[in-house]
């Protein structure tokens, strides 16, 4: 007994099986967590090796180079880059996507063990560090305070950071921008000299005074007491009364030579939120934890935390990655619902039966919820990719049910009882339905085999989801649909007035369309060559439009975040940086109403700020985080609705006005998103000689900046400037005469300028540094340094100027290498509306004009490299898919010519895509290309439906031409119905404006254009081409028969 007759005969079991599927799906939906993207495996490993005291060039020669040579043989390595800075070498290994990083890490460890012997003795052991998406902060909180600034660190640490860190899933919580308390003992060098004291002696005395010592136990009478000396300071003022020495029989107190400030660290990163001084709390999640859940919990906790804080300290949210996620998913849910309604309306208009429409539309939720079960089982999340896949699938899942239902209706109209009709009608079309589903699977299953890069991660899920949804829809079409038809379809149901009012015009229009189309096909098959000529002309004509199409990798997404990094000349004082930062901040906030809040930090990050350590910071660097109102309510909240890239563009223009800025980067999307950020083309210039490559890089950067202002919004050169610094060169001979050595002398220098940590001051369970150093006014000039007195063991002092010279020097910059060669990268960011291909052309053009010495080579990389790679992969995939589709069709028709005829609809899908891209000026990116590949399967479906019926008509004895016309007329409605469902189903994606919609617009648009144009042309060209092939076949057959007889 066949599956559909079982289904019809056991309606309760069938219904309940699908109810079970729905319940299971909804249960999964309930358990699924939300995320922005599918889990992206890390593909980078950083090997950090420090070698204190070595310069960049030394590091390059002695560490980076041998490490690179050893690590280069690690399997699956894609690129190896290195940065050699003062004291540290970073070797960054980039792997192919989809490999097991644990295996790679083991491999790396083995190679490191081998090379360790040949590394310098003083170099520390290399550390392996994996940086993944989990390390990107999920939330940035702002803290503003007017009065409590100096105590802020302690307040935040106790009252905010610790409670937050206790939340399940929260990894590190770092506090940035709030200075840490420090007791400063500021000494006067002249008084020190007069009283015969040094920084070292004072700090030693402070250390010795500030100590608790247990004295053992003592038995008195019948008891044992322990003895203790409580020497630790209980009040900062006690420091001033310390006796630091004797001079001429008189006691010297600390207050005689120094003053004490209970203040904060001198150099610290300062953070401002909306222009108000405060702090920033950076929250990172534990690996594998869910951002949305954590963010929800954190946000719920903030009001409680706020109550505990002093009234002037206010917490706010600068960046909340979950918000973007939730908005994106919500907008996709809307898309799915809109698509559902559209598909329902299309079915209703074509079938004009409420019950039939209900039966068909029911397959949509049944098939879609099955996808949730898959997502839960495979450990995935509801993300952009999975939700969009659902939206893509909606238009396709009804196809099978439509075909089945249509045939059942036909049988009922012929007089079968609904039950018998359901069984026999499903039996008739079952094979055709399975075959057309197989062609769709032939398209989507290969998607699951893409492994390269981000495209692989995205489309693997798309492939699985569509494949599963389509398979379930096939199962539903073969069981649920016939079962429901047998239960609720009636012959000639009563038609109400409302029905007649709405559907009579639709019916008339469809009838007119049927006969008009039949006449057109009749005419076309009688003028075959003219039609073919016109078709070829259309195809060739569309090829001329190709040059107008631009290419890109991924579109830039508007996630309402802008990251700005401003660099002033190295060594700029923090006061100047602070002032400039305030001015820029003011300008951004007043000029752009779209800005919701700003946050910026400047200054050197402290050692305990985990996040601060990962990015570069310094007194000359300003980091801005600008948050705009999210796309959905930008217009409502600000009265203006400029896009992210547009605002970035304007900010770049503003920053150009500040002459004091050395360079800046404005990155749309906050700079840390892996895709959807702005597209860049990187020109990598390889060469050993710094000067040579510097000249070329700067020349090309300048030229691109000037000649291509309209398409390039910013050009950055990777190599940093040579750093100016004062170096103290000790004369060893003179030191030797004084009984000193370089180490002793340099410690004297360091203690006076940087300060010596004498001891720790304890209060309320927290410890603060007590730092002894020269008072600020005594370390402001080179003379102050020259006047430093260094004492030898005999207690004789000698001025630094007598034993050393101070020279200003430029030290080499960070040395960057890629694939074992020195490299300098010039990266160009695409301006609004400009596509990657424009910049590539520009870069190639400019590079051709520059004279490049033979020892220097160059290549393009960045998003361009990824684009090339992915396009290549997708091209191969397309060929594979076309072959698979052909194989499926050929085996269905058991013929080679019929599928070949059907394949004629594919070129016209390209015509539609080219037309669409060209008219809407959408660049061809990965998403559009995926759309094209999907089209391969979708457009042939139309052909299958038509040719299948034409063959049927021929088998029933009609002549070729009559068969073509009859089948065309009869199949017009199913073809139109399924095509319109798919096209209109894509529209919400193609026209979406919500957050994250940019990503899928190109795909929706490609499929909608390609399928519309291809359907319109296919409806004419397929019957014509079929006629040509069959007619020629017949002629050949007759000729051969005649030949045989003779």
């Amino acid at each position: 007994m066949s599956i559909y007759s079982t289904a019809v005969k056991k309606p309760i079991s069938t219904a309940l099986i699908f109810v079970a599927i729905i319940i299971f799906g909804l249960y999964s939906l309930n358990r699924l967590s939300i995320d922005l993207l599918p889990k992206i495996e890390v593909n980078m490993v950083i090997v950090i090796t420090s070698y204190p005291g070595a310069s960049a060039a030394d590091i390059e020669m002695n560490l980076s180079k041998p490490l690179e040579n050893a690590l280069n043989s690690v399997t699956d390595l894609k690129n190896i880059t290195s940065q050699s800075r003062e004291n540290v070498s970073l070797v960054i290994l980039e792997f192919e996507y989809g490999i097991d990083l644990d295996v790679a890490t083991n491999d790396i460890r083995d190679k490191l063990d081998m090379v360790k012997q040949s590394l310098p003795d003083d170099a520390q052991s290399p550390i392996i560090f994996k940086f993944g998406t989990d390390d990107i902060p999920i939330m940035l909180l702002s803290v503003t305070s007017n009065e409590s600034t100096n105590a802020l660190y302690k307040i935040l640490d106790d009252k905010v950071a610790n409670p937050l860190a206790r939340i399940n899933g929260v990894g590190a919580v770092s506090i940035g921008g709030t200075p840490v308390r420090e007791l400063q003992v500021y000494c006067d060098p002249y008084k020190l000299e007069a009283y015969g004291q040094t920084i070292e002696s004072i700090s030693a005395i402070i250390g010795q005074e500030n100590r608790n010592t247990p004295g053992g136990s003592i038995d008195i009478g019948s008891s044992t007491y322990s003895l203790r000396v409580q020497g630790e300071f209980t009040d900062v003022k006690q420091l001033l009364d310390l006796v630091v020495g004797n001079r001429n029989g008189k006691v010297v107190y600390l207050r005689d030579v120094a003053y004490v400030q209970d203040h904060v660290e001198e150099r610290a990163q300062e953070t401002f939120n909306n222009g108000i001084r405060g702090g920033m709390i950076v929250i990172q999640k534990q690996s594998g934890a869910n951002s949305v859940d954590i963010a929800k919990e954190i946000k719920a906790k903030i009001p409680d935390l706020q109550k505990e804080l002093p009234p002037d300290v206010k917490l706010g949210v600068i960046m909340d990655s979950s918000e973007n996620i939730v908005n994106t998913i919500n907008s996709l849910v809307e898309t799915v619902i809109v698509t559902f309604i559209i598909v329902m309306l299309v079915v209703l208009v074509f079938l004009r039966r409420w019950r039939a429409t209900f039966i068909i539309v029911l397959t949509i939720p049944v098939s879609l919820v099955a996808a949730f079960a898959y997502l839960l089982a495979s450990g995935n999340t509801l993300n952009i990719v999975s939700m969009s896949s659902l939206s893509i699938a909606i238009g396709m899942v009804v196809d099978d049910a439509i075909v089945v239902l249509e045939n059942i209706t036909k049988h009922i109209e012929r007089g079968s009882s609904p039950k018998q009709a359901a069984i026999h009608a499903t039996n008739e079309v079952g094979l055709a339905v399975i075959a057309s589903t197989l062609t769709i699977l032939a398209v989507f299953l290969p998607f699951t085999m893409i492994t390269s890069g981000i495209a692989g991660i995205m489309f693997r899920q798309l492939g699985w989801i569509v494949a599963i949804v389509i398979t379930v829809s096939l199962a539903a079409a073969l069981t649920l649909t016939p079962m429901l038809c047998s239960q609720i379809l009636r012959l000639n149901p009563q038609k109400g007035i409302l029905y007649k009012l709405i559907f009579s015009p639709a019916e008339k229009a469809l009838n007119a369309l049927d006969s008009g189309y039949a006449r057109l096909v009749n005419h076309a098959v009688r003028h075959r060559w003219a039609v073919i000529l016109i078709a070829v002309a259309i195809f060739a004509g569309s090829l001329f439009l190709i040059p107008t199409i631009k290419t890109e990798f991924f579109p830039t997404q508007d996630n309402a975040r802008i990251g700005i990094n401003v660099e002033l000349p190295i060594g700029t004082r923090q006061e100047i940086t602070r002032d400039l930062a305030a001015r820029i901040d003011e300008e951004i906030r007043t000029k752009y109403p779209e800005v919701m809040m700003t946050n910026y930090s400047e200054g050197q990050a402290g050692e305990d700020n985990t996040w601060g350590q990962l990015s570069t910071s310094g007194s000359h660097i300003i980091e801005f985080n600008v948050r705009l109102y999210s796309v959905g309510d930008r217009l409502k909240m600000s009265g203006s609705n400029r896009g992210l890239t547009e605002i970035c563009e304007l900010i770049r223009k503003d920053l150009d006005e500040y002459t004091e800025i050395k360079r800046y980067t404005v990155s749309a999307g906050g700079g840390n998103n892996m895709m959807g950020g702005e597209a860049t083309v990187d020109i990598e210039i390889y060469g050993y000689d710094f000067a040579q490559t510097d000249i070329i890089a700067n020349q090309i950067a300048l030229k691109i900046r000037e000649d291509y202002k309209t398409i390039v919004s910013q050009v950055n050169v990777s190599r940093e400037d040579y750093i100016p610094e004062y170096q103290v060169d000790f004369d060893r001979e003179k030191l030797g005469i004084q009984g000193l050595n370089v180490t002793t002398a340099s410690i004297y220098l360091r203690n006076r300028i940087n300060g010596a940590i004498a001891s720790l001051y304890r209060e309320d369970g927290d410890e603060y540094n007590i730092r002894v150093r020269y008072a600020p006014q005594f370390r402001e000039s080179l003379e102050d340094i020259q006047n430093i007195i260094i004492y030898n063991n005999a207690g004789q002092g000698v001025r630094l100027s007598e034993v050393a010279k101070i020279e200003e020097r430029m030290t080499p910059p960070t040395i960057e290498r890629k694939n074992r060669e020195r490299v300098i990268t010039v990266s160009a960011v695409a301006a609004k509306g400009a596509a990657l291909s424009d910049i590539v052309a520009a870069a190639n053009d400019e590079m051709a004009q520059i004279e490049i010495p033979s020892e220097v080579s160059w290549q393009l990389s960045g998003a361009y490299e990824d684009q090339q790679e992915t396009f290549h992969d997708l091209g191969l995939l397309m060929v594979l898919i076309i072959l698979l589709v052909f194989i499926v069709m050929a085996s269905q028709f058991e013929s080679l010519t019929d599928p070949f005829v059907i394949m004629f609809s594919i070129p016209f899908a390209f015509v539609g895509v080219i037309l669409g891209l060209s008219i809407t000026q959408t660049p061809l990116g990965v998403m559009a290309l995926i759309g094209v590949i999907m089209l391969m399967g979708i457009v042939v479906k139309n052909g299958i439906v038509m040719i299948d019926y034409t063959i049927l008509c021929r088998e029933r004895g009609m002549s070729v031409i009559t068969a073509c016309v009859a089948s065309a007329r009869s199949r017009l409605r199913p073809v139109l119905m399924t095509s319109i469902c798919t096209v209109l189903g894509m529209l919400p994606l193609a026209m979406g404006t919500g957050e994250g919609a940019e990503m899928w617009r190109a795909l929706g648009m490609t499929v909608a254009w390609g399928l519309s144009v291809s359907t319109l042309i296919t409806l004419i060209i397929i019957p014509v081409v079929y006629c040509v092939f069959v007619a020629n076949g017949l002629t050949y057959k007759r000729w051969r028969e005649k030949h045989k007889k003779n």
Partner: protein
Amino acid sequence: MKAIFISFNQAYYEAIVTLMNHSSIRGFTYWQDVQGRGSESGLPHYGSHAWPTMNSAFLVIVEEEKVAAFLEQLHNLDLETEAQGLRAFVWEIEQTI
């Protein structure tokens, strides 16, 4: 005794069984899948790609007095939905065991 051979579109199966029950006809022989086509206007039933429907057939042996009423009922069934196809043929039974 008369033999009635009924050749019909499969969709009629249940209707015909019901008719036989009403007419108190108990015994029959049934072929589920048979192919055929009508002599004048009847469409082929081949179970093929072009003609996907199939016929079934009953061979029913009944007492003579039941034949007319039963045929009448079958004829009515056919008239209701002529497109489906239903034919019945009657002949004499000479001997039985």
